[in-house]
């Protein structure tokens, strides 16, 4: 249970549908999904490969457009706003952490963090970037480019970048998927700590049941809707 008192969800999805067309065949991924997350909450989404976890996360993060349904972020209905407004929300309210880290290979660790504030037009200053990198244990790797960093270190840079704009929501797509158990554990501990200290909401997509248990809530994505994680779907 969350320790915070919630009045309004920071992110809410209502009757979310997402389908893809495979020739004439329509493939439904999300089927009227309902979801909400409050500040300070961490929600884990688990499910088998191909169930649409990443699609769900991308749709929540306004990277993808739902076929129908509404997504509210801080009370704003994103289904009826412009692409530029969505971009602004994405930059200022949402932080992304991906399995593949997705860092700019030509920029240093510090620049990879600072660039987020620059394009989101929410510059929090170099000092804050340095604090974040220090918090994720990379104060001695500021000038290193991603190619000179280990997978765990790269993911920590990605976390620092995601947190730099002080987002209301952090969307993490299998953040430990490419890391060894030790590094994965370190990254997750840090992620939970940092999110807790910043009071952000976190939605975490993972295959790791143990990791899901650490979150304040966990859901299983099954046949396009969210079910309680204790429910085991038939194979």
């Amino acid at each position, binding site marked *: 249970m969350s320790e915070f008192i919630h009045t309004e969800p920071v992110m809410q999805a209502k009757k979310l549908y997402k389908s893809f067309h495979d020739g004439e065949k329509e493939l439904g991924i999300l089927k009227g999904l309902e979801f909400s997350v409050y500040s300070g909450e961490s929600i884990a989404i688990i499910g088998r490969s191909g169930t649409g976890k990443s699609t769900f996360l991308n749709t929540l993060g306004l*990277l993808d457009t739902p076929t129908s349904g509404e997504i509210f972020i801080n009370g704003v209905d994103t289904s009826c706003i412009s692409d530029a407004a969505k*971009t602004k929300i994405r930059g200022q309210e949402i932080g992304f952490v991906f399995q593949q880290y*997705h860092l700019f290979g030509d*920029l240093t660790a510090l620049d990879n963090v600072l660039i987020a504030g620059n*394009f*989101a037009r929410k510059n929090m200053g170099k000092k804050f970037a340095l604090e974040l990198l220090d918090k994720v244990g990379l104060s001695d790797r500021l000038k290193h480019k991603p190619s000179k960093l280990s997978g765990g270190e790269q993911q920590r840079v990605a976390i620092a*970048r995601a947190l730099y704009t002080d987002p209301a929501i952090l969307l993490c797509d299998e953040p430990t998927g490419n890391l060894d158990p030790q590094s994965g554990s370190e990254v997750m501990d840090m992620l939970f700590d940092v999110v807790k200290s910043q009071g952000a909401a976190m939605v975490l997509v993972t295959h790791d049941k143990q990791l899901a248990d650490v979150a304040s809530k966990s859901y299983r994505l099954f046949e396009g809707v969210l079910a309680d994680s204790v429910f085991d779907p038939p194979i």
Partner: protein
Amino acid sequence: MYMIKLAWIYVHARIINYIAVVVVGLTLMASIVVIGVTDGMLVDMERRIRNLGEQVAISFRTPIPEANLSNISNIKGVKGFTPLIMDYALLKHGMITEPGVAYGIDLKKELKLSSIAEHLQDIRIDPENPEWVVPDTDTGGNSPAFVGINLAERLGVRAGDTMTVSYSPPDSNKLVSKNFYVSSIFSSGSPLKDRNGFFIKLDDARQLFMTEGEQKIKGVSGLSFFLNNPEEANELEVPILKNIVPALGLSYRGVYSTTWQKRWKSIHDGMAYENMLMEVVLFFMNLSSGFCVFAVLATLASRRVRDVGLLRCIGAKRVNTIGIFLLVGLFIGLMGVILGVGAGYLVGLNLSDIWEFLTDQPFYSPQLFGHTSPPVIYTWKVAIYAGAALFISLLSALYPAFSAGCREPVTALKEE
């Protein structure tokens, strides 16, 4: 700031981008050099045409008294005029006889307006105290003459030789002859003067070509007008005529005029046409360098799709991502322009030396052409070519930039 930084990084990320810079630069350099050479030739041709020659020539059927010339008032755009007596004669030296064109001139006035002094090979004339011959030279009592280099070669005369000029007046069978001392050979580059022309004093021309009555009034049969801007010759021809005809008490019948532009129109137009064709060819060269930039940027955009997705993910607008690739095009264009302008000036201004170093032959052989024709590089033309190269680079970047910038973030992120 990161837009510029990323664009700058992308420019330096792959060697092929430098190749695009070099292609833009080489094309611009070639444009500057080629246009510099053709402009140099055009300028040189105009200079040769105008050398020793008037820009507006007026001739009279009946000679007019030289004294009347003082009635001519100042004409706007006209630097000045000189009296002239021009006629055709036979020149004889030894066994050789050649036809030639005599130009009777007032050397002192001519020196103030024309470039005659620059082309004399055997004598250096003091403009303040002009002399037709080197002081203390024994001319054998003959009048001096300057002979065109090609005419002199055909006649076999050199400075110091004597030649005979003969003239047959139209109304007489009598041949009037006079010996002249060749005090200098001139080489002006003007085919008209160099091939057939020779200069003599006004008084000597009068003795040869005019009747006694005409000699008494100190007649002149023509005027050479020199203009502040020779390019305005055609425009000033009529105003000059309108001024001098009443001033000299003449009627328009029997007064003939022409300009250097009319005289050499076909050659001048041909050269200008050649220049224009060259510019069209160079435009297509610049366009092909644009295709190179296009290809490079299309490759870059396809290789940086994931970055585009990531940028969109962290809040970059479409215009930001498009802007980054446009900036790459701009940087490639700018670097190419800097390279091209620098190399263009360097090569253009030292073309003869470079050519000679590479081929052991002068680029524009004075032996063949009688003079050199250095390239003329106009700054305004360089600015136009540089601007066009930059514009074409930017234009070539448009499609790759838009195709990259308009990718949906989710699909862009999935591409590796």
